[in-house]
C-alpha cells in the first residue's frame, strides 16, 4: 500500500517533466540575427531589415550563402519578427545580434519610441552597437551581404568597432551609452555613423574636383574629415563606419566627421591611440611636407568647471611617437622637438575648442558628458537637476590646453641629410 502511494506521487511529480523540454532549442532551429536595421516604412510603420547568419560547414561552404538579408514591414519591431517567422524556416532570435542600424529619418523623429523595446528585451543587450546611417538601413544591410574578409558579419562588426580604440575615428557607441545619455541630466546621447560607398556619379565627380583643388595644407587638414560614404577609396567592405551622430535628447541633431570624432574621443578620455598628420611646423615647409605622429593618451583629461563664472577648462595629456618627418629636419631632439610639441599642442587645442564650440552653438548638446563632472558640486540630486546643466551648457566659456610630449621616434633617432645636388 505504501509503495502504491509512493509510486503515484512519483508519477505525479514526473508528469511535471514529461510535457516537454521547454526553452530548449536546437542550434539549427534558430535564425541568428546579426544586424538589425530600422527604417521608416512605406507600407507600414517601420521597415525592419535583418541580416541572418546561415551556418556553413567549416570546410567548404559557400561564402555567398553565409548570410541572408531580409526586410519586412510591420507596425513594430516584434511584429516584424513574428511576420518573418512565416517566411523564414527558423525561429528568429536576437541573442547574437551585434548592431542596430537606424536610418536618419527615424533618428530625426526621435529614438525614444524604439529604444524602449531594445532595453526591455531579454535578447537584445545593452552592449549591442547603435549606429545611424544617412540613407536607408535596408540598403546598407543589403550592401553588406557579401563580406570580403570574414564569413559572418558578427566578427566584422566587432573588429570594426574595435577601431574606436585603435584609431579613434569612431566612438564606442552602444545602447548602454545611448541610454545613459538619454536619461542623464549631465550628458547627451551619441551613436556611431555608418554608411556605404556612395555610387552617385555626379556627387562623386563634384567631390573629386573639389578635393583636387585644395592646396596641400588644406588637404592635410581635410585629412580624415569624412563622413561615411565620402572617403575616396576603392575596394574593401561595402560599408564604412566612421564618425559620430550627435543627439539632443532623443533626436538626431548633427554629425561629426572622422576628424572631429577623434577630438571627441580625446576630450572624453576614450582615446587610446591614433596617428595624426600635420603640416610641417616650419612655415617654409608647410606647403609641401608633413609630419605624422602617433598620439597616445597619457592620462585621462582633467576637466575643471567653474559654475559661477561659467568657465570650463580642459587639459589634455598626450604622448606621441613620431612616425614620419618628410622634411628631414631633426624634430626628434632639442629645440626643434620642443617646437614640434608646441605646434602639435596648439593644433590640437585649437581643433578641440572648435569642436566644443560647434556642439555648443550648432548642436546645443553636451555630447561629451562634461555635465557629469558637475555632480560633485552639488549636495543633493534635486539641486543638481535644478541647476539644469544641459540648458546652460552653450553659455560656458571653454578653453582647452594640451600637453604633448614626444616620447618615441620610431627606429630612427635622427634623419641624416640626403645627398641632393642640383643639377
Amino acid at each position, binding site marked *: 500500500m505504501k509503495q502504491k502511494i509512493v509510486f503515484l506521487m512519483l508519477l505525479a511529480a514526473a508528469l511535471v517533466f514529461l510535457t516537454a523540454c*521547454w526553452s530548449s532549442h536546437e542550434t539549427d532551429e534558430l535564425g541568428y540575427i546579426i544586424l538589425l536595421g530600422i527604417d521608416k516604412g512605406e507600407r507600414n510603420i517601420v521597415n525592419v531589415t535583418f541580416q541572418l547568419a546561415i551556418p556553413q560547414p567549416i570546410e567548404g561552404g559557400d561564402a555567398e550563402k553565409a548570410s541572408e538579408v531580409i526586410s519586412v514591414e510591420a507596425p513594430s519591431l516584434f511584429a516584424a519578427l513574428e511576420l518573418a517567422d512565416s517566411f523564414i524556416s527558423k525561429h528568429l532570435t536576437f541573442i547574437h545580434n551585434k548592431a542596430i542600424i537606424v536610418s536618419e529619418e527615424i533618428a530625426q523623429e526621435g529614438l525614444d519610441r524604439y529604444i524602449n523595446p531594445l532595453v526591455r528585451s531579454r535578447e537584445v543587450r545593452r552592449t549591442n552597437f547603435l549606429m545611424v546611417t544617412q540613407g536607408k538601413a535596408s540598403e546598407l544591410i543589403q550592401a553588406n551581404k557579401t563580406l570580403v574578409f570574414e564569413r559572418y558579419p558578427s566578427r566584422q562588426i566587432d573588429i570594426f568597432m574595435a577601431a574606436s580604440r585603435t584609431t579613434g575615428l569612431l566612438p564606442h557607441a552602444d545602447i548602454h551609452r545611448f541610454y545613459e545619455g538619454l536619461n542623464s541630466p549631465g550628458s547627451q546621447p551619441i551613436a556611431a555613423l555608418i554608411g556605404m560607398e556612395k555610387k552617385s556619379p555626379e556627387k562623386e565627380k563634384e567631390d573629386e574636383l573639389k578635393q583636387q583643388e585644395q592646396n596641400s595644407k588644406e588637404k592635410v587638414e581635410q585629412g580624415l574629415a569624412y563622413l561615411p560614404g565620402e572617403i575616396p577609396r576603392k575596394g574593401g567592405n561595402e560599408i564604412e563606419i566612421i564618425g559620430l551622430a550627435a543627439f539632443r535628447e532623443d533626436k538626431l541633431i548633427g554629425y561629426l566627421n572622422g576628424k572631429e570624432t577623434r577630438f571627441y574621443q580625446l576630450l572624453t578620455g576614450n582615446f587610446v591611440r591614433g596617428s595624426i598628420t600635420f603640416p610641417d611646423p616650419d612655415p617654409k615647409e608647410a606647403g609641401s611636407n608633413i609630419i605624422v605622429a602617433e598620439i597616445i593618451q597619457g592620462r585621462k583629461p582633467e576637466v575643471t568647471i567653474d559654475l559661477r563664472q561659467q568657465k570650463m577648462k580642459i587639459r589634455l595629456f598626450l604622448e606621441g611617437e613620431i612616425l614620419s618627418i618628410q622634411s628631414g629636419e631633426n624634430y626628434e631632439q632639442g629645440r626643434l622637438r620642443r617646437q614640434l610639441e608646441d605646434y602639435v599642442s596648439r593644433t590640437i587645442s585649437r581643433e578641440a575648442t572648435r569642436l566644443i564650440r560647434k556642439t555648443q552653438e550648432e548642436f546645443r548638446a553636451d555630447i561629451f558628458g562634461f555635465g557629469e563632472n558637475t555632480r560633485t558640486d552639488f*549636495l*543633493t540630486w534635486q539641486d543638481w537637476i535644478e541647476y539644469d546643466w544641459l540648458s546652460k551648457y552653450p553659455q560656458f566659456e571653454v578653453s582647452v590646453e594640451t600637453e604633448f610630449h614626444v616620447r618615441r621616434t620610431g627606429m630612427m633617432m635622427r634623419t641624416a641629410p640626403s645627398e641632393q645636388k642640383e643639377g
Partner: protein
Amino acid sequence: MNKIRIGYSEMTAVLVILIGMKAFIGYPRMITEHGATAGWLLPIASGALALGLWLIIARLLERFPGKPLTAITELLLGPGLGIAVNLIMFCYFLVTTGLLLRIFSESVILSLLPETPLSAIAVFYLFGAWYALYYGVEALARSSYIALVYIGIGLVTSLAALFPYYDFRMIFPVMGFGFGSFLKSSVFEISSFGEVIALAYLVSYFSSSDRAKIKKIGVWSMGVVILLFTSMVTVYLMVLPYPTSTETFVPIYQLYRSIFLGHYVQRVEAVFVIFAAFTAIMRIAIGLFVTLQILKDTLKIPYYRPLLGLFSLLLFTIAFTPQNIVETVKLESLFSMYYGGAITFGLPLLLCAIAFLGGKGEKAK
C-alpha cells in the same frame, strides 16, 4: 533524537545567505529608489543601525541563556500573547520566503529559461529545499559554508569584469535626495537586515560553550552583508546610474549582461547565473528551515520533518498568489525591505524593553 550542533562559521555562512541574498534580486534597485545617488552609503548607515539593534537583542538573549526567542517571548508576554507574537514572526518568514520563491522563479525565467512554465521552476526549487532539509540542518549549514566561498569568487569576478563600464562620477551627488531623506531611508532600510533575528531562534543548535558567540555570529554576518550590499550598490550605480537604476527588475542580471571584454568574453551571464541560482535554492531552504523552526518551538513539536511536504505546498501557494511580477516585487520590497523592520526588529526590541525595564530574566542584574 541526536542533538544537532552547528558550528560558528557555518552559522555565519547560513546567515549571510539568509540576509544577503537580497543583493541578488531587488535590493540595489530599491536602495537607489530611496536614496538616488547616495544609495551606496545607505547600506553602511542602515547596517550600522541594525548592528546596534542587534547588540541590544543579543543582550536580551544573554539574559535567558540557552533559550530561543520563542521561549523568551512566552516567558515575558505570557502564553497567549507570546504565541501570537511568535506566530507573527512565523508568518513573516513564511510570507517572505514564499514571495522570494516567486521572485527567484521569475528571475530564472527572465534570465535562463524563458519558455519554461513558472510552476516547474518553483517545483524544482521546492524539491531542492525539501531534499536539503530532509537531510537535516547540518547538511544545509555545511553546504552554505562550503558554497559561500565560491559564490563570493563568482561575485567578485563578475563585478570586476564590469570595469570598462565604471564611471566614478555617477555616485555623486553625495547626499542623493538630501540629508533628511537619507536619514529616514536609513532607518527604514534596517528591515533589509531583519533576517538576523533568525539567529535568535536557532539558539538551541549551539552547545553551551558557543552561546557567548551568538552575538559575534550576528555581528560578523551583518558585517559581511554590509560589505556585500555596499559593493553591489556601488558597482550598480557606477554602471547603471541613477534614473536607469530604478528600472531593472533584477539588477545583478542586467549587470551580468553588460559584461563585454572583447569578442570572446561577452554574453557570459549564464555562468554567473549558476552561482545565483545555487544561492537561491539555498536561500529558500534556509528560509523554510527558519520558518519550521519557529513553528516547531512555538507549538512544541519535536520534529519538523513531517511538516516539510505541507509547507512546501504552502510556499508554492503563497508564491502564486500575486497576480504579476510587479505586484510581487512591490510586496516583497515593502514587506521585507522597508516596513518589515517593524516586525523583525520592533517586536524583539519590545521584548527587550519589557525584559530590561521589568528586570526579568534569569540573569537579570
